[in-house]
């Protein structure tokens, strides 16, 4: 898994997660989130377009990010979900809460595993 965090003007940040977000890798994401949250960005865009595999541990980290940013009044948008991660989001009904309008477009795609 690779996590790329970039801050932008106007108090926005972008977090791009690639590869597999699971029990083995979630610790890296959590430590990056901890660092990011200290600056309290107003808007966080989480780009999951290159995420291939997501398990329940990874979901926990993403929900944690969402709740922490919302907790100080910020906004979180998760974009680019597809295939297995999108199926997991739908199964856990997170699409209703955490997804941006991007989901509507992604929904037309059929899930398939790249594993």
């Amino acid at each position, binding site marked *: 898994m690779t996590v790329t965090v970039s801050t932008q003007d106007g108090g926005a940040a972008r977090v791009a997660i690639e590869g597999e977000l699971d*029990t*083995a890798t979630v610790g890296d994401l959590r430590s990056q989130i901890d660092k990011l949250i200290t600056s309290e960005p107003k808007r966080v865009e989480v780009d999951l377009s290159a995420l291939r595999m997501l398990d*329940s541990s990874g979901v926990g980290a993403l929900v944690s990010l969402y709740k922490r940013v919302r907790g100080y009044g910020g906004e979180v948008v998760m974009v680019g979900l597809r*295939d*297995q991660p999108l*199926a997991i989001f739908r*199964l856990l009904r997170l699409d209703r809460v955490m997804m941006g309008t991007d989901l509507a477009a992604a929904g037309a795609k*059929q*899930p398939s595993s790249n*594993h």
Partner: protein
Amino acid sequence: MARPTDAPTRSMNRLARRTERRTPINYNETQKLRNRRTESGIIPGSVPIRLSMLGRVQHRDIVLRAVSAACKLVRERPGQLEGDTEWSEFRMHVVTAVSEAFNNIVLHGYAGRDDGIIEMNIRPRRNYISVELRDFGGSFDPARVPEPDFARLPESGFGLFIIKELMDVRYRPGRPNVLTLSKRLRDRTARTDCLAAGTAEGGGA
């Protein structure tokens, strides 16, 4: 009288006791157990694909690759493999569910210990697969594990829910605990239909 095929053997009980005592596990012993079973013809029908490993997160990728490869042996018609939406969804569900099950054993059953053994039997059939996971860690009652309270946006407790949604589940606590996950290709329930078609209720943003 023939011993039931799923009853623990003396060797398995010995393995369990070693696990409890945190002593190193001798893999030759599990091999002897397998040989004896095969020689005695206890396993009816075809022999399952077997893996035995310590329950460590680092071993999960090996498990998932084996399961993913075994899914290639499951097809409803000749030539049905990658590129086929239903088969791809089938494999994705199986790999995801087994991943969660393995995590549960490592993180909860063995509670972070890294010397507990996990045995896996994979039985791919023409349009069906079953994956059996055996461990000697703590047991649980799947019926008593509550579903996540989605309204509260929980951060944990998703694993068993995901497993149950994606595969049929049987669980027998004991020494060893035996978790059996099975799935039929084209076993498309209303829920998985929604997943595949991207039309889950409220599936918009």
